[in-house]
């Protein structure tokens, strides 16, 4: 251990960095693996080309355990108990629910091991693969686990930063990624994600708390409604746990109404989280939660189409918020 390997950065990977969350994260993880021999990546046969660099240059620290996620978590725990910092990677449902009890017992209960579960495919990211591949309850499940840090990045800059943050933080972590590219919200060189949330926009009528891909949606809603004399505040809640309660409460208190939006079941996600926080702290403001209702999505089609089915598209949200404010 301790030997440093010269960093190799491919131009192609650099190009990908600015487009996709998953690629940005993987590129940053590659840099960490170059720096620290204690870091290991385990996958369960996910076919992610974004790991090619790691696979090619560090075959000994890239482990494909096959399609066996329960074993993957145990192997990660065993490695972590022997001094390694481990990343496990799979599509959201398989790296969270398929091996949930293993995460609970092996990673959390056993002593908060330094293992980061990286789930790709937030919400309807795998839009054409049906409900088996939708990531719609992961935030709820992971935030209930003691000791678990839950991270939900909203763009590629943040996804890359979370690779470094998860490496430096002790204990188990869960990171929920999108596969695809997003318009960037943050500037690469100025972003600081230590607060757990960012107040991206001020507004007095409604404060929209959003996470993941829905942060951009909330910003678009705010933009759209600005022209209609509705003043919308936007919070990017990228760290669900541990939650920065004080800062979130302070921001919530500045608006007349609170809304939440997430590509996740309404039950248990950030809508629940904000409701709990408000109730416990006597924040008596109207609350509206946008998310996926209590049913599985059996429709197949473009992600935007799936959003429109649940009225999570820009026009539906903007209209709902506007109608709400204007009474």
């Amino acid at each position, binding site marked *: 251990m301790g030997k440093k390997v010269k960093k190799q950065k491919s131009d192609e990977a650099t190009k990908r960095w600015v487009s996709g969350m998953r690629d940005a994260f993987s590129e940053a993880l590659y840099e960490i693996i170059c720096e620290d021999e204690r870091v290991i990546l385990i996958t369960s046969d996910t076919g992610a080309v974004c790991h090619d660099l790691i696979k090619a240059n560090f075959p*000994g620290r890239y482990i494909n355990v096959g399609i*066996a996620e329960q074993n993957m978590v145990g192997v990660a725990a*065993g490695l972590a108990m022997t001094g390694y910092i481990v990343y496990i990677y799979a599509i959201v449902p398989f790296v969270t629910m398929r091996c949930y009890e293993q995460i609970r017992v092996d990673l959390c209960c056993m*002593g908060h091991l330094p293992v980061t579960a990286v789930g790709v495919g937030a919400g309807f990211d795998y839009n054409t693969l049906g409900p088996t591949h939708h990531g719609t309850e992961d935030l709820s499940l992971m935030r209930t686990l003691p000791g678990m840090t839950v991270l939900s990045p909203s763009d590629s800059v943040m996804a890359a930063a979370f690779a470094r943050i998860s490496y430096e933080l002790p204990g188990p972590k869960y990171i929920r990624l999108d596969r695809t590219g997003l318009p960037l919200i943050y500037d690469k060189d100025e972003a600081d994600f230590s607060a757990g949330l960012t107040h991206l926009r001020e507004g007095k009528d409604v404060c929209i708390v959003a996470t993941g891909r829905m942060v951009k949606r909330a910003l678009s809603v705010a933009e759209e409604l600005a022209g209609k004399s509705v003043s919308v505040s936007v919070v990017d809640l990228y760290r669900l746990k541990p939650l920065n309660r004080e800062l979130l409460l302070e921001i919530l208190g500045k608006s007349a109404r609170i809304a939440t939006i997430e590509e996740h079941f309404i039950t248990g996600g950030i809508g629940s989280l904000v409701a709990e926080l408000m109730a416990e702290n006597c924040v008596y403001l109207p609350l509206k939660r946008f998310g996926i209702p209590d049913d599985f999505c059996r429709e197949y089609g473009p992600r935007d189409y799936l959003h429109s089915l649940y009225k999570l598209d820009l026009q539906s949200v903007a209209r709902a918020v506007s109608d709400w404010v204007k009474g």
Partner: protein
Amino acid sequence: MKKYSPELINKLTDKARLLRCHVVEMIARAESGHPGGSLSAADMIAALFFHKLRHDPLKPDWADRDRMLFSKGHAAPLWYAALGECGYFPKSEFARLRECGSILQGHPDMLKTPGVNMSSGSLGQGLSIANGMALAGRIDGKDYRVYVLLGDGEIQEGQIWEAAMAAGHYSLDNLCAVLDFNGLQIDGRLQDVMNPEPIPEKWRAFGWNVIEIDGHDMSQILAAYDDAGEVKGMPTIVIGKTVKGKGVSFMEHAIGFHGVAPTEEECKQALEELGCG
């Protein structure tokens, strides 16, 4: 078969007897626990702790130690008995099994008990963790070995076979699983509840070196562990045919003593039978 000195055999047999005494006594005092599966595995565990394992009770976290894991966590009293006998903690702790604030809890907790290398209680997970430790040993170029005790009912868990496949695939010859094949689980005989047989053939098919022994015959046990250490390129499973409740007449083959503590009277009789009354 290898020959072992009568002194060694006698010493280990007596250690196993002593472990059984501790198991019965601590479970009776706690008025709850799982005696059957602790008593059945006592000989195979005694051979490891008092002869085979490279470990240092004064340095439970020694990086080069052999790792002993109990995947069947309900055999915790046996683990505690062995650790206490070795000196990981004072034997006076035995009397506090399952008490509030005790370092000895109903299931093994690595955060509470010195020498417990892995928490367990939820069945089927230990072999995967053993895989991780064995892989780490290989990557680090260390020569420690990883031993993991499995229950025979436990191998009904699907994860065991994911882990078995991985250990075979990665040729983890620094890994040795020990199967306590006592044939009984809480609801009855394995073959009636959910038959895992043929067990040796299954492990062979997953790429394992399989050694079948009488799990109460100390010479066979020692030879199995020695042979396991010499086999290269594949993990070994020692399948020890055992008797649930071994050593206490009324507990032997008794499904009722899977998870029920002996009464004060039963405890007294058991300790007499074990020669430590």
